[in-house]
């Protein structure tokens, strides 16, 4: 077995794990990140929902109970972590904008609007004043995008359909990376003789540099242009992940990608190493401290058996709502199911409560009480707790 040693080892390659590893690396710690594969943020809108349940994220967060992870971070910690995120995205060449004090709106594929906090520039113009004219562009054969859902809900709106030669969002986005395709598209768009204030498209404006694609279209037609996030697989979610991964690589974080943790080595109350499943020999990754950011059920950080919920790497104690019959209420649309509160409880330093381990910290959606679905706070919570847990970890290391 080969062995590698680090100051900090972060387990989990989603937004919280990445933000934790960037925080640690920025403080000079030799950091490794271990991930089973690409994270669920690739399936998201790419926007940072901080607290979309109310119009004012920070105001909404203030009203949360003291055991909510946001309350453990505190308002200053949340604001600072979001600034750090904006700085990172600038460095990655995929700038985001937004204000934690006030949510903005983006448009959904069914024509409704949705609150969110930080958005990529390609969605900045989605927050439209009422009465403006909107023209929606759809693509021939695209599966999950039906423009009439949008035009039926907006009085001044129409749509046209462009044939990109491929029907999938990822396929169309790849074509927009090609300058000659973009030119042909713009020529077609200029030929549409309709009065329009803004143009909206499903989020397919390239996989590499969507801002330039958007700018070019916008300049050519003299209108504001914005993207509408689509169902998974989501191009803006993928862009977000790839941008974050690029920064990790630039900042010298060692990535173990596509490899899950198969076993954990402890000495007394200290984790010393984790072993990774790899196709050749097993790899042993040593660290002085560990951050657990393996996510909730979808990502596999938590697993629900028939009767109980367990944490999948360290078998940490899990706070879970009673029996299985209490996990879900009968209303699909409430989102406020008991299971949403299941997870690992942590103290003010983000150390798991009741764990027999001292050098372990947890962050992201694996945390108990976070209620991501009903509060709509997924990526925001990941950023805030990822940075906060890493700060505690940094303190432990120094």
């Amino acid at each position, binding site marked *: 077995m080969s062995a590698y040693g680090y100051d900090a080892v972060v387990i989990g390659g989603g937004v919280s794990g990445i933000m934790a590893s960037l925080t640690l690396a920025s403080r000079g710690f030799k950091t490794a990140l271990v991930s089973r594969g690409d994270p669920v943020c690739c399936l*998201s809108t790419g926007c940072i929902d901080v607290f979309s*349940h109310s119009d004012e994220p920070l105001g909404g967060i203030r009203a949360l109970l003291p055991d909510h992870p946001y309350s453990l971070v505190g308002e200053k910690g949340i604001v600072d972590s979001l600034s750090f995120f904006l700085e990172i995205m600038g460095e990655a060449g995929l700038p985001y904008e937004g204000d934690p004090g006030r949510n903005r709106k983006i448009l959904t594929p069914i024509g409704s609007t*949705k609150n969110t906090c930080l958005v990529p520039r390609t969605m900045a113009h989605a927050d439209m004043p009422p009465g403006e004219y909107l023209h929606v562009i759809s693509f021939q054969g695209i599966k999950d995008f039906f423009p*009439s859902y949008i035009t039926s809900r907006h009085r001044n709106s129409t749509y046209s359909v462009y044939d990109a030669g491929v029907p999938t969002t990822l396929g169309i986005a790849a074509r927009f990376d090609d300058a000659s395709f973009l030119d042909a598209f713009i020529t077609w768009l200029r030929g549409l003789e309709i009065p329009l204030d803004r143009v909206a498209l499903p989020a397919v404006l390239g996989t590499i540099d969507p801002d330039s694609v958007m700018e070019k279209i916008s300049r050519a037609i003299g209108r504001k242009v914005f993207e509408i996030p689509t169902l998974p697989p989501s191009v803006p979610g993928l862009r977000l992940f790839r941008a974050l991964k690029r920064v990790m690589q630039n900042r010298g974080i060692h990535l173990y990608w596509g490899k899950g943790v198969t076993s954990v080595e402890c000495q007394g109350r200290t984790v010393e190493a984790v072993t990774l499943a790899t196709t050749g020999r097993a790899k042993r990754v040593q660290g002085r401290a560990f951050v657990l950011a393996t996510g909730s059920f979808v990502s596999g950080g938590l697993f629900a058996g*028939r009767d109980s919920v367990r944490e999948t790497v360290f078998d940490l104690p899990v706070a879970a709502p009673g029996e*299985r019959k209490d996990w879900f209420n009968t209303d699909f*649309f409430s989102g406020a199911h008991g299971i949403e509160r299941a997870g690992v409880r942590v103290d003010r330093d983000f150390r798991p409560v009741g764990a027999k381990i001292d050098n372990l910290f947890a962050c992201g959606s694996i945390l108990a009480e976070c209620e991501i*679905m009903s509060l709509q706070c997924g990526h925001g919570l990941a950023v805030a707790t990822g940075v906060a847990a890493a700060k505690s970890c940094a303190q432990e290391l120094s």
Partner: protein
Amino acid sequence: MVVTFFHDMFHEESSYMIKTDVVIIGGGATGCGIARDLALRGVHHYLVEKGDFANGATGACHGLLHSGARYAVTDPEAARECIGENAILRRIARKCVETTGGLFVRLPGDSKRYRDTFLSNCEEAGISTEVLSATRALDLVPELNPSIEEAVVVPDCSIDPFRLCMLNAFTSRHKGGGILTHHKVIDIVRERGRCTGVKVLDRFTSQIKEIRAKIIINATGAWGDTLARMGGSDAPMTLSKGSLIISNHRLTNMVINRLRPPSDGDIIVPNEAVCLAGTTSIPVDDPDAIEVDPREVDLVATQAEQMLPRFGTTRLIRAYTGVRPLLKAEASDSRSISRGFKIIDHKNGMFSILGGKLSTYRLMAEKTVDAVVEEFGIKARCKTADIPLDGQDELSGYPLSKRLKGIDNIVCECELVDRAQVENAINSLGIQYIGDIQHRTRLGMGPCQGGFCTYRALGIMQETGRLTPDESIEILKHFLQRRFRGIRPALWGDQLREEQLVESIYLGILNMGQRA
């Protein structure tokens, strides 16, 4: 391809008053079987059904064509009926029946004396059996619990109840009968105490139609008493809820039964790509107010796991429940009530067909129609056992190769349903309901249970002008809520992961949550 022969079935009736000889209420296997039988005997009729075909117990059962072995010890008469019908259906309904064969497995601790009685009663009922050693049984079904004592082979089969209903209805339509699905009976017309017709509400157009007939047949299963009362009589029954679970994999190619007195959760039936396990048996009062309790899921899964251990670790995609319309009896345990059937002549122009089970639907239809033609004073012999179901040639079945044809434009990835199939269902069958598309194409029947494709199918429906965008969103909401009812009792493991992903799409990306 979807079944295209229903072509003109959904065309709107132009007149509000329709005259016929017989009205059948209920589009389950019995009602559709009666329609076919009447058609073959030349009696004009209409069938009305409040939902789609197989809306009640027919669509919520195991899909098991019994050999009768299950009833050999407790109900020999039902056993004899089953084996007779089993042979007939294998002959006339080839495209609905998969001749899987069945095993009764005896686990350690199961009574050997019961096994002896079972074998001799099967012989008496004319059900062929073959006793296999554990080793030979494991050769046949490798996923079986390796500690089984022995197994008995019987001629059980898997049957597709929905397809069975459609094919029976096809003959009826072909011979001039009227089939009105999504038409709910709101009143029974009576003149001088005699039932002379029904008033039905077209659930799509909200039109009310009146159908006048000489005889009304109440084949509404669990709703039998309600309908009989509308006609001024009654049809007392015992209602028993039975819940089942669906596994994500086809863990066995044979029907697996437990060799012990009939009890909860002791039958597993392979169906297409999945397995169905059940059932429970719990008395209920109202067939419209039934839910699966998570404890029923645990009970059935635990029992199924004893026969096929992998049932304990495989993903369960859904649970569902139906109501057995059993004959009223003194027995308090609903398992010991006869699965036999009874025809009631209410002497007011209405006949009710009560009890029975899917396997004997044809026989039930035959006896019912015998009573009706006698009333009419016609001499016409039943032909349903001799003539194969019409329309079977047009059924393509499930072959993957056929489904891969439209791979470029798949709407439902789980079941490989492409856009052309969905459009065909919408355009040529005139379908108005998302559930009807699902029944006819298998759209949404796979692991994600329509989590992705229903949104797409509704998008296509509104693009073709069948629905407005607002209607489409309303139907989507309704669908998601109904879907969740079936999924919720069996949510753990990977299915819970899948469900949280679906939730994040509808509540997150599409922002359809209530609190937003």
